């Protein structure tokens, strides 16, 4: 066995790990790869995907227009299931966004260098998912044109202020802050890459746009040092922020008295579920993107495998939470709570409960097998399965708790109308349309960050080479 490089522990550790990007790449090669993506004409695969996504979006826009003109009576919502598809979709989409922030902020703080190839597109996914989420409370209001009533602004009704004790208002602040901070974080991360693209472009409208957006970035080391500080600060702020967002979303449920909702386990359970579903969505998107765009050497199987490992962890936390919930419902001795859970597993919506358990608890356990978690095809299928499961988790929580309330006289059932189904499809259309536009318009992989993990010129060098500056190098001189 080779003797470890004990005087350079970090070198020894790096040497035993597989490289983050495969195939020897040069710095200019990375720029070529990403810049080439932006310059190339869209492939037929891209156009095909875009056509499907845009059609779904058109369907969604049409449906929402009809719903707003007619009223939310077009939905299957009723008393007492006043929340169903729309809030399920809202929680689902907010959850999807969480993986992006986890990759961009939390993995940054933990110095996980593998995040560099995927953080840009994951952050874009966050922004787009939060937009999709934001649509639902807005249309659920019925009169979205007065949606600004949710903000505390001086008004001529008193002024009558918003109720700061309401978790629904906390949501307004949590989601809007989350969107704003994620957008700023994403844009700050983009600036050096925008400058790289600007300097590669020779002329034209595109160059003007990139010049305007790159804020005059020159790559100055003094600005880079400050930039690194800023990036660290934003990561440090985004970390508690992302945890707070799904915590607050869970409080929409947990602060009410409905059986099945009124539990203290909700915040950690929701956050783990959000990261779980978000990573599944990142996998779905990146497995498609890396093959369509030919980026397999940047977004490698190792990246996919690392994400699969996070899915095992968060999936197991979710499974544990399901078990704990059930146990506590029995252990609390509260008959309503006990009924709510038995009804979930055996009542009229038992099918949705068991879809949820199969998809979220059973399926991720397959990833313990190295062969399965390094196969992009298997990961792709599993990521879709998990997304279905996590959508059903929110459906189960919302519908099963609401359809069997305290009073049997208010028991009812719930079935979505076509309008609700089309709106959900429309939100997927919005998501994929925006994501497809993003990969065509902006550097989808962080050029600067990938370069920093390439290890160009990082080969362990002899101490002599470091100090000996006398060796003449052929330098081209211009007076």
């Amino acid at each position: 066995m080779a003797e470890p490089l004990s005087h350079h522990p970090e070198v020894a550790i790096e040497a035993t790990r597989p490289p983050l990007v495969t195939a020897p790449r040069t710095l200019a090669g990375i720029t070529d790869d990403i810049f080439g993506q932006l310059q190339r004409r869209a492939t037929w695969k891209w156009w095909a995907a875009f056509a499907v996504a845009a059609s779904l979006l058109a369907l969604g826009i049409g449906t929402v227009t009809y719903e707003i003109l007619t009223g939310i009576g077009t939905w299957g919502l009723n008393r007492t299931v006043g929340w169903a598809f729309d809030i399920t979709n809202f929680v689902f989409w907010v959850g999807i966004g969480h993986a992006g922030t986890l990759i961009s902020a939390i993995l940054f703080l933990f110095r996980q260098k593998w995040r560099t190839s995927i953080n840009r597109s994951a952050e874009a996914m966050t922004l787009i998912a939060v937009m999709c989420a934001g649509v639902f409370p807005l249309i659920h209001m019925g009169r979205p044109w007065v949606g600004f009533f949710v903000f505390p602004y001086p008004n001529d009704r008193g002024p009558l202020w918003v109720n700061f004790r309401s978790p629904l208002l906390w949501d307004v602040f949590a989601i809007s802050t989350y969107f704003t901070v994620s957008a700023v974080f994403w844009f700050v991360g983009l600036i050096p890459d925008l400058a790289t693209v600007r300097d590669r472009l020779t002329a034209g409208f595109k160059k003007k746009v990139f010049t305007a957006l790159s804020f005059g970035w020159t790559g100055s080391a003094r600005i880079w040092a400050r930039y690194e500080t800023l990036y660290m600060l934003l990561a440090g702020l985004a970390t508690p922020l992302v945890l707070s967002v799904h915590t607050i979303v869970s409080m929409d449920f947990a602060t009410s008295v409905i059986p099945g909702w009124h539990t203290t386990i909700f915040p950690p359970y929701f956050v783990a579920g959000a990261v779980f579903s978000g990573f599944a969505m990142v996998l779905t998107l990146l497995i498609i993107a890396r093959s369509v765009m030919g980026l397999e050497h940047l977004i490698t199987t190792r990246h996919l495998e690392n994400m699969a490992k996070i899915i095992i962890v968060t999936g197991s936390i979710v499974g544990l939470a399901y078990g704990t919930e059930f146990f506590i419902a029995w252990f609390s001795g509260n008959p309503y709570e006990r009924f709510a859970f038995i009804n979930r597993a055996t009542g009229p919506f038992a099918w949705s409960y068991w879809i949820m358990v199969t998809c979220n608890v059973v399926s991720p356990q397959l990833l313990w097998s190295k062969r399965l978690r390094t196969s992009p095809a298997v990961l792709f299928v599993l990521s879709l399965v998990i997304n279905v499961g996590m959508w059903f988790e929110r459906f189960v929580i919302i519908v099963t708790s609401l359809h069997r309330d305290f009073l049997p006289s208010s028991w009812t059932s719930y079935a979505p109308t076509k309008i609700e189904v089309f709106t959900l499809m429309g939100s997927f259309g919005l998501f994929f349309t925006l994501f497809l536009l993003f990969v065509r318009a902006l550097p989808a992989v962080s050029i600067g960050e990938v370069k920093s993990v390439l290890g160009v010129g990082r080969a362990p060098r002899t101490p002599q080479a470091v100090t000996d500056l006398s060796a003449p190098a052929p330098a081209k001189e211009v007076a």
Partner: protein
Amino acid sequence: MSAAIGYFDDEHHLLDAVRAARAAGMDVRDAFVPYAVHGLDEAMGQPRSRLPWVCFIAGLTGGALALSFELWTSVVSWPLNVGGKPFASVPAFIPVMFELTVLSAALTSVLAFFLRSRLFPGKRATALPRVTDDRFALVLEHDGPATRDLLRAAGAVEITAEASTTAGGAT
């Protein structure tokens, strides 16, 4: 007065050159790099950024303003009895206060960064050739044989002279 610009194709050669220049008592105006080079700020003797203080103070201010506003609207401006809860329900005010703390800290830090670095939308700036792509440039004050020898010895692949008004511009 002009400056000498040495171009390198390896971050280590740049770091060596920066260290050697500082050891020889030369003025390093700036370096231009395609990605954040680890240890370059220390080698250049760059003072620690004060952005964390901006962030901390902005966060504190944002949080304090948010809590004051919540208390003012709920206790002073229009006290409303909501389910018999106290007007000053401080625990219930914490989530909004937290969100606004983060919002204020993040936005102020970014704004401070842009102002301090003089970056703004549409700013016209010409980066040195290829430094946003695959080359590392070191700008040393006082172009002369000594500076050029040092750059050459450190492994510069190209050395040019540039007037101080056009090279870089960042302080």
